[in-house]
């Protein structure tokens, strides 16, 4: 039996889909049979981030309504041995599926895959309830910014009331420069407020947009700190103990020189 992990956040635009794409790809790179599920019915995007938008035939709602078998709806990512996508329907809405159907699909997938990653829609209504229904574990993504931390706190409360205790935290789009200036909440501040276990810190990087432009999850980039940050999260989710990256690490000659002088 594989593990079903839902990636959620409450607020939109904090990086759920980008995280799901990169973490899913990361699991596949580690040799795990992985399926990523887009639960954002009506606003699907995981296919775009993965570069698989032209390969979709059936979707999640087709499976739920019995128009096709589950296996038929899975899009195989040809770049990786072990990676599949179950896309959301684009022309339907959140009411097209029930939490029970979602649980059933997640369970069926968990029989065949090591990791089932569910990309949760923003908000706290039906779509959220569907997405978390079949999950064993929840990962909450937040940005170091007031409104997204507030929404994350609400999500943590809702997850607990739905019986999904101990969610894990990813702090996305951290800007070390702003933290150093005292103008951004620190990782410790956010952990202190949300009081859940931290599993990853991802720096802000323009490369995320480039990666999405290309349809290549950022985890694939070996040169970028973001790629490494995602790979570390994957390994932590697999149970490894890995130190958090030093996001302040200077790059280039002048960076190192500056650091040597403590500025």
């Amino acid at each position, binding site marked *: 039996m594989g593990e079903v992990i839902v990636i959620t956040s409450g607020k939109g635009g904090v990086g759920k889909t980008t995280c799901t794409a990169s973490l899913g790809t990361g699991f596949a790179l580690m040799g795990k049979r992985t399926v990523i599920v887009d639960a954002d019915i009506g606003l699907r995007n995981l296919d775009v981030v993965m570069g698989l938008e032209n390969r979709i035939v059936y979707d999640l709602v087709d499976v739920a309504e019995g128009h096709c078998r589950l296996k038929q709806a899975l899009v195989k990512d040809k770049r990786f041995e072990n990676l599949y996508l179950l896309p959301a329907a684009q022309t339907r809405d959140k009411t097209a599926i029930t939490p029970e159907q979602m649980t059933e699909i997640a369970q069926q997938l968990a029989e065949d895959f090591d990791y089932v990653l569910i990309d949760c829609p923003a908000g706290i209504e039906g779509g959220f309830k569907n997405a978390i229904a079949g999950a064993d574990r929840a990962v909450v993504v937040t940005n170091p*910014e*007031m409104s997204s*931390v*507030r929404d994350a*706190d*609400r999500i943590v*409360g809702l997850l607990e009331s739905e019986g999904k205790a101990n969610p894990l935290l990813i702090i996305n789009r951290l800007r070390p420069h*702003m*933290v*150093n*200036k*005292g*103008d*951004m*909440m*620190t990782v410790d*501040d956010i952990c*202190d*407020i949300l009081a859940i276990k931290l599993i990853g810190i991802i720096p802000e990087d323009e490369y995320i947009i480039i990666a999405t432009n290309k349809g290549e999850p950022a985890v694939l980039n070996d040169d970028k700190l973001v790629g490494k940050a995602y790979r570390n999260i994957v390994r932590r989710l697999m149970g490894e103990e890995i130190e958090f990256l030093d996001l302040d690490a200077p790059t280039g000659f002048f960076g190192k020189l500056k650091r040597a002088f*403590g*500025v």
Partner: protein
Amino acid sequence: MDILQVFKDWLAPNKEHTGSTAKNRLKSMLVIDRSNVSPELMNDIKDDIIKVYQKYFELNDEDMEVKFDNNQNTVILTTSISVLRVKRNIDAANSKDDNDYKRNNANRQKR
């Protein structure tokens, strides 16, 4: 915070560090969020508290604040009310209560 920042602070001592402002605002915001207190209930609480104070003090109605605060993991309900003066007839009211209490006690002892 790095050394450069300390130097910048020295040059511009009044510059606010908004990161900690955000943290503090969030903390008190979340106390209310988590306690599930609606603004209506908050107003009711405020009205009741004010009624109690009004028994003893003359208050400045315009300058009152009742809010939840967060102080290192404890929730504190703070009321900030500006008092114009203490009412003069409080003593009389209290001693009447005292007398009632004594009388009741005496009755109880008789039985």
